[in-house]
């Protein structure tokens, strides 16, 4: 394997991994805030992509369409939190998981009704033929994806460290009762967490769309995102990103070196290995003793 091929693979791995990372982030945020694992998160990614499709078909220029998509997605997240999550927040963990699964089913089915299983392509201004960067040939979409992940991470760090809402979210995820006593409107924080996570999911959808096309099954990558979150540790946002990138790179190299079958297995092998050896992942909090 030459340096050139290795670098190409690394790039492609990082870009796949960035998508995993972004979706893993969008899973981690409501989990940290309200301890609900949103099994419909994959569908929120898909929804984001379709929202973008609709807005683009109305003739919206890309620069306007992107923030509009994110806002609409955020609103959907808020709606979901209020209508689906809030009423059942007291129910056992189990019921919440199934409820979000049911929600995902509904979203996917609704999308199917309108657009069937057709694959649509989203034109993006940066998509185009591979650029030459030194000896490497680089797909510009990959660069945009990786760069977006970096920017998103930086923005989130600022958000959580510097803004009032961000600090409130951290407080709530640490100890909701204490946060309430400090005067933080916990319900508002929950809603915001879900809105934020839906927007981030939509971002993933926006970035994915030009690369692999829009179809109802986009949400399937939630499973990879879950694995990424496990690698990094469920409580850790940085872990989610690292986990996603690592997973993407490992997958890509495995596929190139050992073939497609092993490429499919490796994420789950890693998942099981981590859960058996160090379930809290690299940076997560140790799970309570069973």
């Amino acid at each position, binding site marked *: 394997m030459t340096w050139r091929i290795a670098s190409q693979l690394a790039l492609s791995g990082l870009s796949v991994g960035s998508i995993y990372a972004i979706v893993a982030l969008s899973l981690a945020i409501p989990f940290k805030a309200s301890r609900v694992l949103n099994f419909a998160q994959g569908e929120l990614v898909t929804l984001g992509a379709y929202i973008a499709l609709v807005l683009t078909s109305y003739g919206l220029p890309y620069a306007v369409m992107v923030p509009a998509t994110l806002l609409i997605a955020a609103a959907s997240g808020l709606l979901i939190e209020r209508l689906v999550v809030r009423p059942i927040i007291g129910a056992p963990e189990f019921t919440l998981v199934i409820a979000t699964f049911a929600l995902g089913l509904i979203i996917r*089915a609704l999308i199917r009704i309108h657009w069937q299983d057709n694959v649509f392509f989203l034109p993006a201004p940066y998509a185009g033929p591979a650029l030459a960067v030194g000896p490497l040939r680089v797909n510009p979409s990959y660069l945009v994806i990786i760069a977006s992940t970096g920017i998103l991470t930086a923005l989130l760090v600022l958000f959580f460290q510097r803004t009032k809402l961000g600090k409130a979210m951290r407080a709530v995820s640490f100890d909701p009762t204490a946060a309430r006593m400090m005067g933080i409107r916990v319900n508002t924080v929950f809603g915001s967490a879900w809105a934020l996570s839906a927007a981030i999911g939509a971002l993933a959808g926006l970035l994915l769309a030009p690369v692999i096309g829009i179809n109802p099954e986009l949400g399937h990558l939630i*499973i990879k995102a879950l694995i990424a979150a496990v690698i990094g540790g469920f409580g850790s946002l940085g872990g989610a990103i690292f986990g996603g990138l690592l997973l993407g790179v490992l997958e890509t190299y495995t596929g190139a070196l050992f073939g497609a079958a092993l490429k499919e297995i490796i994420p*789950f092998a890693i998942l*099981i290995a981590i859960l058996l050896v160090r*379930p809290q992942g690299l940076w997560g909090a140790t*799970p309570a003793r069973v």
Partner: protein
Amino acid sequence: MRAHRIIIVIVAAFAVAVPILGSSYQIYLVELILINIVAAIGLNLLTGNCGQISLCHASLMAIGAYTTALLTTRFAITYALALPAGVFVTTLLGASLGYPARRLSGLYLALVTLGFLEVVSIAIEEFSDLTGGVRGLKLEKPELAGFPLHTAGLYYFVLAVAIIAIRAGLGLRHSRYGRAFDAVRQSVIVAQALAIPPGRTKLLAFSIAAAFAGLAGGLFTAVVGFIDPTEFDISASLRQITFIAVGGLGSVWGSVIGSVILTLLPEALRGADEYSDVLYGAILLAALVLAPTGIVGLFAPVFRRLGGGKAQLS
């Protein structure tokens, strides 16, 4: 008690009459319900009673199905032996999940079972020479002791197995093991204080669930005559979870009711075509929000008043 008994008699009479009065499609449908009942009872003992989340129940069913199918088609072993062999293999593999269950719970355990599910899926696709891969495996109707099982015969066989499964489920539920399961679910610390070994109990729960799943899978091969990996994916597992969530967690009759309703529901919704998934999801969501203790939980007070005495529906 009385009303309870009467309902059972009516249902039993109905069940027996199906192959006589029903169309072959209706017979097939009831057979699917019975298979789902068997799988659901196992899952409910594991999740509803013992509190262990499992996302891989469908893949355990797959292991039972493929084992039974391969033994009958490739190795010409009679179904009467292939079926129990399938159960045996599935039980062994399912028991392996007891190991991670010792130290993990909730989300983490769910993820391990998810990993197990995906690995089994990939394995089925990869070993396509053996399993037919994504194209699936076509099977002939089974023979029992040399006699081919035609429609009615197969139906009564499946019915008999389902009844045995219900009996076994009830027997376990009301035994010391059922109590140990419930104890481990509610508090491992208290269970330990009562000399109940949590690790071994979880192992038992996983093994039993696997046995029921393997049995359901073996029956599936006989009834459907064709198996492929998409039948046993994450959606299938989640569907089985909905059976027990809607029917009633921890209740054998809940497994029965949930299986009946949620197997019939997609059929009933078939007319709605593309809206059927939406309606299914919506009904499921509504059921979870409105009846978090399941249908059995909703009707428990009714039964208490009718029957008197029984504090819990089994």
